């Protein structure tokens, strides 16, 4: 099974962990692994668009408090996807989310990373429309400009949560298969070279003799 690393970023009040808990809780997984705690979770997803393809997300949570921001690079290195979460009732949290997007683009580069911007706490706007402080159009326009995936969800009701992981799953899977195809083509051209790359006594930095 293909595994993908997904990192969760966002302010501590936006409910980023709740989104993942909702996702894991609503999913059926016959091989659920016991975990040490709720900061790392893994979950398999059956892709709707690709028949018979199941992938596994390894979900890395980060601390949202500003003072722990410096730890984030330890988490997003080698990530395949990032979920950058804000709260639709807190405009400041979008500003923070945008700074995460910038950092990711600067440090990781979007050719390596699928970034999804997620507005959480949609349920609060449904009961009271005035609670909404971030217009969906604005967030959408920003996402389009930055080439991000975008969703509004409610971790509380579960609305939209499954779709996030489906869409990210499709993107990382398609990237991976395109990449594998490209490298397979490259490999077949260099079969001979590959054979020579095995550790051998001729390699001065090898002790495999």
């Amino acid at each position: 099974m293909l595994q993908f690393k997904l990192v969760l970023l966002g302010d501590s009040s936006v409910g980023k962990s709740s989104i993942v808990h909702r996702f894991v809780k609503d999913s059926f997984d016959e091989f659920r692994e016991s975990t040490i705690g709720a900061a790392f979770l893994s979950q398999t997803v059956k892709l709707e668009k690709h028949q018979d393809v199941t992938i596994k997300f390894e979900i890395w949570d980060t601390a949202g408090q500003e003072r722990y921001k410096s730890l984030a690079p330890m988490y997003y290195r080698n990530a395949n996807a990032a979920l950058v979460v804000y709260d639709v009732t807190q405009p400041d949290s979008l500003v923070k989310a945008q700074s995460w997007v910038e950092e990711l683009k600067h440090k990781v580069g979007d050719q390596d990373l699928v970034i999804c911007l997620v507005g959480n706490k949609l349920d609060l706007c449904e009961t009271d429309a005035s609670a909404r402080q971030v217009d969906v159009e604005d967030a959408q326009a920003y996402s389009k400009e930055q080439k991000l995936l975008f969703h509004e969800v409610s971790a509380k009701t579960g609305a939209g949560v499954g779709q996030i992981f489906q869409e990210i799953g499709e993107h990382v899977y398609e990237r991976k298969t395109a990449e594998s195809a490209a490298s397979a083509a490259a490999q077949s051209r260099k079969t001979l070279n590959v054979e020579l790359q095995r550790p051998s006594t001729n390699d001065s930095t090898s002790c495999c003799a």
Partner: protein
Amino acid sequence: MKGPEGDALDSFTVSQISDENKMRSNSGFPVQNDEEELIYDFQAFVTQLRDPRADPVLRYTRSFLNNFTTKRDMWTCEEQQKLVDDFKVFVYDKLTLYEPFKSLDSAKLKNAQEGIEKLIMGKLYNQCFSPCVEQRFQGKIDPSHHQDLKRDEKLRLRREEYAFIDPGLLEIPNSLTHRLHKFTRLSGKELSRINEYKAPRDKMVCVLNACRVLFGFLKHSGLENGGADAFIPVLVYTVLKSDVRSLISNLNYIERFRYSEFLHGESAYYLSSTQGAADFVANLGRESLHITDEAAFQAQYAKHQEYVKNERAGASGNADASAAKTNTVATSTPAPASTPAPSEYIRRPLDEATSAILSKVSELFASTTQASEAPDEQSDSKTQLPQPDEDADTTALAQELQEQENHRVLEELHVMFPDMDQELIQDVCEAKKYRIGVCVDVLLTLSS
């Protein structure tokens, strides 16, 4: 340690895992975290290695160790990492070619791979673990190993400088402070056992145990779904308050020498988190703290620095006195307290068991075989196999040491839960196979 930018340039980290979980559940192993639940039996591996049919594997390993230790006096850290990694890829492939490894099921094959890692890293520890490298080469070491030591020293100094801070300054919720100290102390104790093992896997298990204790505590405090927001501050607090020698060197050693395929998922997450927490503490300044009352903080800080100064004066006074005493016995300069001799890093009973087992095969590695000699099928090596009664001794020793270890866990838990019935604690320990994190979790549930 590579910077995040450098790593980000690496290709996708997607790894193809076989239906590993499925296979394990079919073969009767619980589907659980790799590090913990897979039955790990070093003795079984050693027995397999002594099978005459395993001779090629043994000879490859011996040759590798010989080359590593004799080809060059000192490899750089990056070279070491590449050599060890290349060898594992190479020899793991050989395991699938030669009996008795060839016909093992996937779980037992994994055990053999673990065994190889433990074996070679046990032999190469003094050349690969930064404080030991420093000890050997007295300062003339390569940049990466040197960097580890510098960062460890930085961590030690910051820890000393900020040892006084209370949980609120790290944004740990007030609701936790009641029992925080007890649990971070236990977690710190588990973490400090990292210095008592040589194998990357064993060190990794110490990190996981420390994290598990913290999660047991968070769960009991109603923060089980708090994710990293709840966990990271408590982990940072643990690193700050505990006195784990050479923590950064240890974590980097795991990262470098744990086989990359074994270091994924949850293990990788908790290793990165602990590295992050150690970095955070090593770079701690007042701007990283949640200070609500500046004047009170200043006063506390000043008072603590005074205390540290006095402690240092006292300590160096003692050191001078003891140095004066030993001066007459003019031998090699005694190492400062912060850099103990390599042998001091290994004091654990369980590793003694390993050493005892290893000594049984040591003659297999003591050979003066030419480095260039390649293993071949018709080898007629006159390997001295240990006598059966020695085997029994080793098994008995391993058992005895395991019992000591169980006793230690039991004692720790008695201290943690003084109001709880002793027999109950013992029952829980037995049911949970003396795995401290799980035991803490159960006992917390029972005590609430």
